[in-house]
């Protein structure tokens, strides 16, 4: 057995009170690809930064071929043989693609005025290898997104590291592009490099990796072969929740007339990366619609487009009228309240003040009545009404965010990933509150979730979003049979 090239043990990183990475340990041998997966906020990116020395570990050890490097500065770690492929990069715009690759080949010297002749040929060869041969003399701003990612890969290859860390290798790429990237990453294995792939989910990297390590809330929850990790009880609970239940409503809401919200042919680009591709979706009055999809599938982008926060192509209609051209605030006042994934609370204001701001566009009587109703729906908020929002626990903050959105008396409530980073017992409380909301009010809800167990019980209809596209829609009771298998 070959000794491990990269050996991580006892790695811990705290940010203030938050433990981002807790006693993490793993090793990668030469010629091995390890997948490091976990949902947003699980600490996987922090772990990568700790290895690279971009963040300083509180305790723990990182060994490269037996040498302790945990306290080294980043540039020294890089020179020692670890390369990082960034997800987002800022290439040199005034320089050509070739010059950008050459940069990575330069020695760390102040007095290197002209690059050596061999550098040029080397850079060209690397460019050819990653498939940039035809665009080497163009400027990065003129390149499509996939080529920019190729350029980042080329820079990492140019450094010829023994260990390669790749951050979300396939985000924003089309299926064909994913194939060619996978081939490049496989070639690292053949060259005997140790590779760490960081990604949201097992599915994306399963075909590529030798082993997978799953993280949640900063800790390792499973490690092993990809299919074993996918079947792992804890992993499934983190991603999907427990067993899937559905409750069809006794009287299904009527789906006639003009839909409350109608999205047609919606496409969104972030720079050159496509985040949504021709998405179509309808929500009718009093319906509870869930959009399920893994992190990075495009749920948040969809909601932000509806709320007018990102520019888009296609049409979004609200009660039959187009929303395009309205400000996000006008859309919110028009009856679409979004409770975002990031919650966006006013941390230095009290619970009561947060709620008051939510109700400020309501008449005083209505505001007072809603406040009483919400304190009844979320009793914990009442007991915390004078406390600053940032001192609340994660679950309480989520309840406050939902309550604040409900203060606006919305016709449509958009809930983006409310379960993010919450413990199971909190999920249950949240789930009960949503159930009461559905039973006792006439509100329409559009819920975006990765956690299927949370998303399905309340839903009247379900959409599955994968890789920027809607790939399935139907009633929740058919989800398990038709879409459940391929989900994770």
């Amino acid at each position, binding site marked *: 057995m070959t000794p491990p090239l990269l050996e991580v043990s006892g790695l811990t990183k705290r940010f203030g009170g938050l433990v981002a990475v807790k006693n993490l340990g793993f090793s990668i041998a030469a010629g091995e690809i390890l997948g490091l997966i976990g949902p947003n906020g699980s600490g996987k990116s922090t772990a990568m930064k700790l290895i*690279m*020395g*971009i963040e300083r570990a509180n305790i723990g050890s990182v060994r490269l071929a037996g040498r302790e490097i945990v306290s080294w*500065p*980043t*540039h020294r770690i*890089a*020179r020692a043989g670890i*390369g*990082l492929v*960034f997800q987002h*990069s*800022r290439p*040199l715009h*005034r*320089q050509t693609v070739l*010059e950008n690759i*050459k*940069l*990575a080949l*330069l020695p*760390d*010297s*102040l*007095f*290197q*005025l*002209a*690059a050596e002749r061999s550098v040029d040929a080397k850079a060209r060869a690397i460019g050819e290898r990653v498939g940039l041969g035809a665009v080497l003399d163009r*400027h990065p701003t003129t390149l499509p997104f996939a080529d920019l990612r190729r350029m980042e890969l080329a*820079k990492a290859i140019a*450094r010829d590291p023994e260990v390669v860390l790749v951050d979300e290798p396939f985000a924003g790429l089309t299926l064909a592009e994913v194939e060619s990237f996978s081939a490049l990453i496989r070639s690292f294995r053949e060259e005997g490099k140790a590779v760490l792939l960081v990604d949201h989910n097992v599915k994306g990297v399963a075909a590529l990796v030798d082993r997978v390590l799953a993280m949640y809330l900063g800790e390792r929850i499973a490690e092993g072969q990809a299919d074993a990790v996918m079947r792992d009880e804890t992993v499934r609970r983190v991603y999907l929740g427990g067993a899937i239940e559905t409750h069809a409503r006794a009287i299904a809401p009527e789906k006639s007339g003009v839909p409350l919200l109608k999205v047609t042919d919606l496409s969104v680009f972030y720079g050159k990366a496509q985040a949504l591709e021709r998405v179509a979706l309808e929500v009718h009055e009093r319906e509870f619609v869930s959009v399920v999809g893994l992190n990075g599938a495009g749920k948040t982008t969809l909601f932000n487009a509806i709320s007018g926060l990102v520019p888009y192509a296609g049409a979004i209609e609200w009660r039959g009228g187009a929303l395009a051209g309205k400000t996000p605030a006008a859309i919110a006042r028009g009856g679409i309240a979004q409770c975002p994934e990031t919650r966006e609370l006013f941390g230095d204001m009290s619970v009561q003040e947060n709620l008051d701001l939510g109700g400020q566009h309501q008449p005083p009587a209505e505001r007072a009545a809603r406040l009483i109703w919400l304190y009844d729906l979320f009793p914990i908020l009442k007991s915390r009404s004078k406390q600053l929002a940032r001192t609340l626990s994660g679950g309480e903050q989520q309840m406050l965010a939902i309550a604040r959105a409900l203060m606006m008396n919305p016709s449509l409530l958009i809930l983006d990933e409310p379960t993010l980073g919450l413990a199971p017992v909190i999920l249950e409380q949240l789930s009960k509150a949503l159930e009461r909301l559905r039973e006792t009010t006439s509100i329409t809800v559009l819920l975006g979730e990765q956690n299927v167990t949370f998303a399905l019980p309340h839903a009247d209809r379900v959409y599955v979003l994968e890789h920027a596209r809607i790939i399935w829609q139907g009633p929740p009771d058919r989800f398990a049979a038709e879409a459940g298998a391929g989900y994770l």
Partner: protein
Amino acid sequence: MRIVTALIILLALASLPFWVSAYILAVLTVAYYFGVFAMAWDLLFGFAGEVNFGPTFLIGLGAYSAGLLDNHGVPVWLCVIAGALAAVIGGFVLALPALRLRGPYFGLITLVAVLVLQQVIVIFAGVTGGEIGLTINDVLSVDSGHNYWLALAFLVISGLILYSFSRSAAGLILQACGQDAIEAQALGFNVAKHKLAAFAVSALFSGLAGAMLVFYLGTASVDTVVDISVGVQIIIAAVLGGRRTIVGAAIGAVFLIVAGEILRPLGQLNTFVVSAIALVVILFFPDGLVGYLLRRGERA
């Protein structure tokens, strides 16, 4: 093609002493020294990514060190070198906070550095001449043509050195450090080392130009080489000409000084008009003159 155009322009500029007045030569001489100030600033801002609001801290150090030494009988060439060295030391002093602080904080430190220098000059008025200024006995040359050629040659040589540095391998690394320090480190570059070097080079040229300027003017005063408004003018020149181009900074400086001179008949209003023009350029052509031309070239 570009080289031919540049040579023709250069020859035309070099021939000016044969057919224009001493007054125009004097304006251009000062403009050329400002061109070097602006290029040195652009190296820090455009390439190392450091916003230095106090270029006059470096320039003033160079100017006053040279001037004071001259008053003690040190030969002119030695004074100029000493001025440059003093500025380099000042550059290191500025670089220390730059490596620790971000954005507005570093900007403030550079502003404060200028204010401190200004106060020190005023407090030690006995030595420095205070607000009236320091009279310098030696001059580079008494002939306006010679002074003009000297300034032009200095501008061209500095420009060539700074431009080649910016386009060299080390310049490429510096640019990467300025754009994204974390990525540059992950590529194995010691960002602190490269930024320190940029401060030293920028300070060297600022100090040299500052020292030579006082020997041309025959006086060193707070108003001409230290005041914040002088620094602002340098920054405006570099932004006007086009950030990250080096050459643009020099063109911007010459334009600014010449425009100020042409608008002199407006009296007190000329600064207003020049500032307004600069503001309009910043708002509508944020890439500056040379940047705008380059961008059009890239698209074509």
